[in-house]
């Protein structure tokens, strides 16, 4: 079980993925981005490494509201989150989503896409999905994109 968890952790937060996040954050430094992860540990690793706020189920309501307001008004350019922002949160200003890791659930993936498809002027939304090659993540990624929104 411990080995399985370790393997998943390696796939979720592979060094190459995190390096690419740096590139994406730099490329979209004028945009508002949401970085989605499968687990809290990766969300906090992203937060710690790139100094962006993280929202997980451990985040208190007050801080969560402050972070979302900060993303909306441009105080923050990006927010890392595990699953808590998958649904029920409206940030029309967010135009970039980076899926670092996730489950094979089509529903979850479509909901994540929905976070950046809120109408706001002439906004053009971009979704990136980072997948560690040669791991089970490739199958998970194929599964979650079995939806008309991705065809």
């Amino acid at each position, binding site marked *: 079980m411990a080995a399985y968890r370790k393997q998943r952790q390696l796939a979720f937060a592979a060094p190459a993925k995190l390096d690419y996040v740096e590139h994406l954050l730099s490329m979209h430094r004028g945009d508002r981005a949401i970085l989605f992860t499968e687990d809290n540990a990766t969300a906090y690793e992203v937060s710690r490494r790139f100094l962006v*706020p993280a929202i997980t189920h451990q985040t208190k309501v007050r801080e969560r509201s402050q972070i979302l307001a900060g993303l909306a008004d441009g105080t923050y350019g990006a927010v890392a989150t595990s699953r808590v922002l998958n649904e029920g949160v409206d940030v029309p200003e967010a135009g970039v989503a980076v899926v670092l890791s996730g489950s094979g659930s089509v529903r979850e993936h479509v909901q994540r896409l929905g976070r950046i498809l809120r109408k706001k002027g002439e906004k053009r939304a971009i979704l990136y999905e980072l997948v560690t090659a040669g791991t089970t993540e490739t199958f998970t990624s194929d599964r979650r994109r079995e939806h008309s929104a991705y065809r």
Partner: protein
Amino acid sequence: MLTADHVVARRRGGELMIRPLAAADRAEAMRLAAELIPIFRAGIGQSREDVEGELSTVETSPRCQKIKEGLVKLLEDRCAWGMETGFDPADLRREVFTLAAKARRAQGGAARFDRAAVLAEVSAARGLDAGTLERALFADLRGASLLSSFEPLSPAALVEAYDRGQVQAVLLRAARVKVAVACGSPAAARALFRRLKFLGLLYTMQPVDGGHELIIDGPLSLFESVTKYGHRMAQLVPLLDACGAWTLEADLRWGKERMPLVFRARGGPRAAPGAAGEIDDDRALPDEVSDLVRAFRALGTDWRVSPSRAMLDLPGVGICVPDLVFTREKETIYFEALGYWSREAVFRRVDLVERGLAAKILFAASAKLRVSEQVLGEEAPAALYVHKGTLKARAVAEHLEWLAHRAAPAKAKARPAPPA
């Protein structure tokens, strides 16, 4: 304390039976205990994440995984965790992330984001070194909390606590518990009843041949605060052990389906840490009653208030154990706080009064229970004080005055507790 998930039990018909540790499993439990305890002992000052990492290196068979989880839970209950710094991590994060966002927006095309520069700027402004800032940034996360103290015990004591914890965990799913206890002495009986009051457990009691029978409301019969009440309920077992030989029958609602099952257990007498002995001063009172005593004394009325040692017995109906006794000249009025857990408890007290409880008594119940002060008639030698929030000293004083003007019960049947 173990939870219902840690219980290793099987069902036979309508009965739930705890599966006692077989010899091999007991030996494995002892081995696990001997390996787990030093990890907590050596973990003082380490983060929870590090301690949990160490715990995960202690391996066992899938069959004994539940035992390991139970032992770890019991050890965690003996730990205190704290935060490293005096800073508010949420404030620090806001400052660091805001500055980082500014820095990222300001960076040129090919330039890389300079994380170290952001941290250095906040560190300098806060008078911290960068390492401290990094640790403080997420110090409020569960995994970052630091083990500040651990109350050690021997492997044998841990396995014994595990055995006892199985019964305690089952009782968390009880709707009603019936206990027969043969107290070793009148003092032991009095200590038991006072402790039950102190825990705020809702019970009725009757003397029976060779001891007492208690009917205790279980956590699943209650209006709210089930978990808190359940934790108090779990302390019943050591209390009974300290008192004398006991048998118990609990009506359970077990599993996700809340299946009605019966659970039986027996035990005692044996010494239980922290359970023995009687305390007669204000420390024996539940917090809310203790606060009331302080506030009441501050009012400066001519009533005297002290913890009650009486047991008001209505033969064939039940015994009431008040928390306090108020006295003024020849007037004596008892007081029992019923809290906010069960309407049934209030109605049982009303029944006691209506069937002839022969002492003046004031009951206090939370307004959350939606009971009316009118449930006790104006002629009754008892009154109900329905309170919102905390117990108010002035309202209690008013109720005492009303009661003082009522006629004394026809025949005084209240008897003091047996002498020690």
